[in-house]
Structure formats: structure tokens, C-alpha cells
């Protein structure tokens, strides 16, 4: 295992935060989620290792294959498990003080299980009472949460009779019922139909806009990309990259030049002219002969060149689109598994 770890360490790129260090320092630490040199071992099995992470408000997505350590990170953040080493602070509070922490943290975990014999309403209401809310207040909070996930009609039905999507929604409602400032969601879109997915994503965006922290793990990369302000790529217990999709993509530009598809007339002539530029690594004609793929290590310089070419040589450019400036490509380059919609 040690050799595996050292091998992985050598692969670990320099991390880049979406915020400049000075900006991160300027944010009050009581508004950040901070992991300092956190490791978790399950006996001899590595959960996560040497995690240094600072999460600012907004939507942060944890991305990685199964068993990469996403859930371990979430469980550490919420005190369900204790770190073997290191320190975690969630908005300045340590996770082993649940009474303080869960006043402003909500966690919707992966377990599709519920206390026996409860209706959706009872499930949320009972745990609000357990948190110490007075009955009237708990009642109002329960209905507000149920309305948010659109389960009013099914509220008094037993959870055992719910569909998978309904169970997912009621768990989401339970995790947000106490109006937390930090919401941690492990695969929150699993089992939801397309309409419920859209509604839920809209809800997440709204919550993020309100200044909340949302930490989401999912396997559906394109959905994460749509929603996320920051992505954290994790594999084999190590954080591989952290930042906005574009900034992480830029990090890998030297190793994996960016591929841009250009639809234009006279693609062969276009290719021959641009190939002289230093910014272009490779140019390849499209199969249909109506365009070409260009690989560049400096996208900005290439776009300048493209403008000049069009102006000076009169090319008719119909479309310009980066092919691999997305989370799927970043995932593929950093983690190595095949792309597709799912990781």
C-alpha cells in the first residue's frame, strides 16, 4: 500500500483554489470549511490521506470514482467518523461538537434507510423535536421543508411506501429543515426523475445564491459542472485538484493540450496557416472535411490568432467550440477512467 501511496503522491498536481490565496485569507475563517492535513485510515485501509482543503460558500462538488474517498470526506466533515490525523473546522466549529455544529449543518447521506414506521412528516418533525425546537416551530419548519421538495400530498404516508425518488426527496427535506448554513449532500440526485432533478438543482442554486455552503458528491459529471462553483477531484483518498473546471483544466494544459473544433470553409488551408503558430500543437481535419480539430497549449493566444486569420484571410468560420474544456475531460485526464456522462 505504501508504494501505491508514494506513487500517487508523485502524481498529485499542485492544488489551485478558485480563489486567489489572498482572497481565501481575507474570508473570515468562520465562513470556511477547513481540512488541515487530515488523514483517515480504516485499520490498514486508506480512506483519505493528507487532505488540505478550504471550502468557501457556494456549490462545491466532490468528484471521483467509487471508493475514492468522497463519502469519507463528508463523514469526516460531519463527525460521523473521526480523523486519524489532522484537524477539521466547519465554519470554525469542530465536528465532534454535534450540539453546536448541527445547528447550522445538514447532511443528506447515501443511506436509503429510515427509522421504522414513520410517515414523511413524522420523520422530519420528530428529528426537529430531537434538536430541541418547540412543537409549533417544528411543525412550521417541517411543512416548509416538505413544500420545498414538493411532497405535501405524500407527507402523511409511511416512508416505507415511498418510491426511491420520494425517499430521496424526504431525506433532502430532513437535512434542510432546520435551515442550515452548510448542506452536505451525498449523491443527492440519485433516483430522481428528470423533473425532480431540475427542481432540486434549482433549489441548490438558490441556496448557494443565498450564501450557503453546498457540498455535493455525484457521479453525473455534466450535472455537477452545470451547478458547481468549485470542483474537488479525489482519487484513492488523495485530492488531485481543486478549483473551477476551467482553472483545473488550465493546470493540465501542458500535459493535455486543449482541443478546439472549428467549423469553417477551406479547412485544409486553415490548418496549414495556423500550424505555423507556436500556440498550435496539432491540427487535424474533420472526417467530413468541413472543419478541423486544433490542439493548443495556449487557448487565449490561439483565439487571438483565429481572429486575425478570419480578418486577414477571409475564412468563413461557422462555429468554434472547445471539445475538452469540461469536467468530463478533466476527470478523464486526472483520474484516467473513460468519460461519458457518468464517472
Amino acid at each position, binding site marked *: 500500500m505504501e508504494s501505491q501511496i508514494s506513487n500517487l503522491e508523485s502524481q498529485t498536481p499542485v492544488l489551485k483554489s478558485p480563489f486567489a490565496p489572498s482572497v481565501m485569507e481575507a474570508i*473570515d475563517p*468562520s*465562513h470556511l470549511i477547513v481540512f488541515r492535513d487530515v488523514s483517515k485510515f*480504516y485499520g490498514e485501509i486508506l480512506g483519505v490521506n493528507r487532505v488540505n482543503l478550504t471550502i468557501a*460558500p457556494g456549490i462545491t462538488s466532490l468528484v471521483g470514482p467509487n471508493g475514492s474517498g468522497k463519502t469519507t470526506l463528508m*463523514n469526516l466533515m*460531519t*463527525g*460521523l*467518523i*473521526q480523523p486519524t490525523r489532522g484537524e477539521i473546522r466547519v*465554519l*470554525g*466549529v469542530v465536528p*465532534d461538537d*454535534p*450540539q*453546536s*455544529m*448541527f*445547528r*447550522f449543518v*445538514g*447532511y443528506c*447521506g447515501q*443511506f436509503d*434507510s*429510515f*427509522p*421504522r*414506521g414513520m410517515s414523511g412528516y413524522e420523520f422530519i418533525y*420528530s*428529528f426537529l*423535536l*430531537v*434538536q*430541541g425546537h*418547540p412543537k409549533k416551530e417544528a411543525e412550521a419548519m417541517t411543512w416548509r421543508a416538505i413544500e420545498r421538495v414538493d411532497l405535501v400530498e405524500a407527507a402523511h404516508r409511511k416512508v416505507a411506501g415511498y418510491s426511491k425518488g420520494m425517499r430521496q426527496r424526504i431525506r433532502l427535506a*430532513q*437535512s434542510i429543515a*432546520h*435551515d442550515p*448554513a452548510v448542506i452536505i449532500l451525498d449523491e443527492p440526485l440519485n433516483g430522481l426523475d428528470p423533473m425532480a432533478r431540475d427542481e432540486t438543482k434549482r433549489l441548490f442554486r438558490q441556496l448557494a445564491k443565498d*450564501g*450557503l455552503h453546498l457540498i455535493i458528491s455525484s457521479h453525473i459529471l455534466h450535472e455537477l459542472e452545470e451547478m458547481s462553483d468549485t470542483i474537488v477531484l479525489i482519487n484513492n483518498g488523495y485530492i488531485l485538484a481543486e478549483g473551477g473546471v476551467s482553472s483545473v483544466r488550465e493546470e493540465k494544459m501542458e500535459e493535455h493540450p486543449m482541443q478546439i473544433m472549428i467549423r469553417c470553409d477551406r479547412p485544409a488551408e486553415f490548418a496549414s496557416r495556423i500550424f505555423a503558430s507556436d500556440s498550435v500543437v496539432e491540427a487535424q481535419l474533420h472526417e467530413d472535411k468541413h472543419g478541423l480539430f486544433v490542439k493548443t497549449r495556449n487557448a487565449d493566444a490561439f483565439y487571438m490568432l483565429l481572429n486575425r486569420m478570419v480578418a486577414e484571410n477571409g475564412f468563413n468560420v461557422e462555429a468554434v467550440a472547445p471539445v475538452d474544456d469540461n469536467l468530463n475531460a478533466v476527470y478523464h485526464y486526472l483520474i484516467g477512467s473513460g468519460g461519458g456522462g457518468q464517472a
Partner: protein
Amino acid sequence: MSSLVEAAAKPATTELQWGLWWRQVRAILRMEVKKNFWGKRALLIYVFASIPVLLMFLLTFADPDSAADITKNWAAAQEVFANIFEALILRTMVFFGCAWIFMNLFRGEVVDKSLHYYFLSSLRREVLVAGKYFSGLVTSVILFSLTTGGSLFFLYLARDYPANVNFLFDGPGLKQCLVYLGVTILGCIGYGAVFMFIGLFFRNPIIPALLVYGWEWLNFLLPPVLKKISIVHYLHTLAPVPMNEGPLATVVEATSPWLAVPSLLIFTAIVLALAAVKIRKYEISYGTE
């Protein structure tokens, strides 16, 4: 948001904290007692708790001879009841009933994968231990007090009227009944703490529960010092008509109720404190259960 977090981090006054904890214990009680009484698992415990009552009923009514014996020889009948109470009700029904109820408080939730909802609530884990323990206690005390009370009811019903009523209200009957109920409740208090602790510490609590069972049953053979490290010893001492433990039993000076009751309560408090310490570092890992 910051005000919310600041409010969360701000230490509340002790008085407010106690008020909050009391509300939380009540909320846990409400949820758990309902689960204990109405869940599918409750059915087994109902059947279990009704066995001694059924036995007493059969003994007194299905067999007219034994009913006549009870009427004729009340002292002997009381001794028979003392044996039934200690051997069947206390050492079997209360013991295994408490094992089932209290071990399931945490272990059952781990099996159902629902314990994390408590752990993800704004709730001190020590308060969770207290809430769960009291919910188990309420359940077991109600159930097994009914078992003891029901058994006594049939014992008294078998004796002819008005001798039974006279013995109950003008003789030592009422006091005896109350002591039997008290011993049942103390059994629930002591065994409850032990089994909740076992349920928290062991992934498979059956083996330690059986070891405790063996220790409690063999208690009469143990030397005096070891004898005192058991719950049944104190309960036996407190019983109004102690069961005859047989010729092999080690003779020990009876512990006074003034020592036996506080000893049991102190023992329970220690076990609960250990459970509270344990739960602070308890990690949820359903996958490995």
C-alpha cells in the same frame, strides 16, 4: 449566516442547556417508546412478557387441585410464587426482555441503518444515551411491571374471597406486591444499563449477553466477594420472599435494602457514564456491521 453560526457557537447558560436537554430527552423518549411498543419487534416482547402471567393463570385456573392448594396452603403458595418470580420473571423474562429492548436501542438502529439521523442532529451524544436509556426503561418497566402485577393478580385471585383481600389490604400482601414491583423495576434499571452498554460495545452482543446470563445464574455458587458483583444478588436480597437457592448455594449475609438499592443505582450510573464516554467516539460504519 454568520449570525446563525455565531449563535450556534455561543455557549448557552447552564439553565438553558438543561432545559434544552430535557426537551431533547423527551423527544427521543416519544419516538423510541412508540417504536418499542408499536414496531414489529414489539410483538415478540409482548408474547415473552405474557408467559409468566399465562403460567400463573394456568396454574390457578386450569388445574383446580393447584388452586385448592393455594387456598389451603397460602404460605407454600407464596414460596412457589417467589420461585416463579425469581427464576422465571426476574432471571429469565426481565433479563432477556431487557436484553432485547436495550440492546436494540443502538444495535437495532445500526442494523436498520438509521442511527445516523440522531448523530446528525444538534444533540449531545450523552443526551442521546440518556434519552435512549429512559425510553428502554419506560418500555421495560411498563411491560414487566404488568408481568409481575398480572402474575400476582392470578395468585390472589386463586385464593378464596375474602381471605385474599384481607391478606392484601390488612396483612402484608400490599407491601409484598409493591416490593415485587420495585424489584422488577430495579431489575429493569440494572439490566437495562448493562445491555445498552453491551449493545454499544459489541457488534454481536449475543455472546456477551449469554456470558452475563451465565454469571447471573451461577451467582448462587460464587464466593461472597464475587457474588456481590452481580445484579441478581441485590435483587434476590430485596425480594419479599427470597427464592430457595438450594443446598449448593454459598451463604452470604443479606445486604440491607438501604445498601442494595443505592448500590444498584450507583452501578447503573457508572455503566451509563461509560456508555456516554464510549458514544462520544462512536463511529458510524454500517458497511462493516
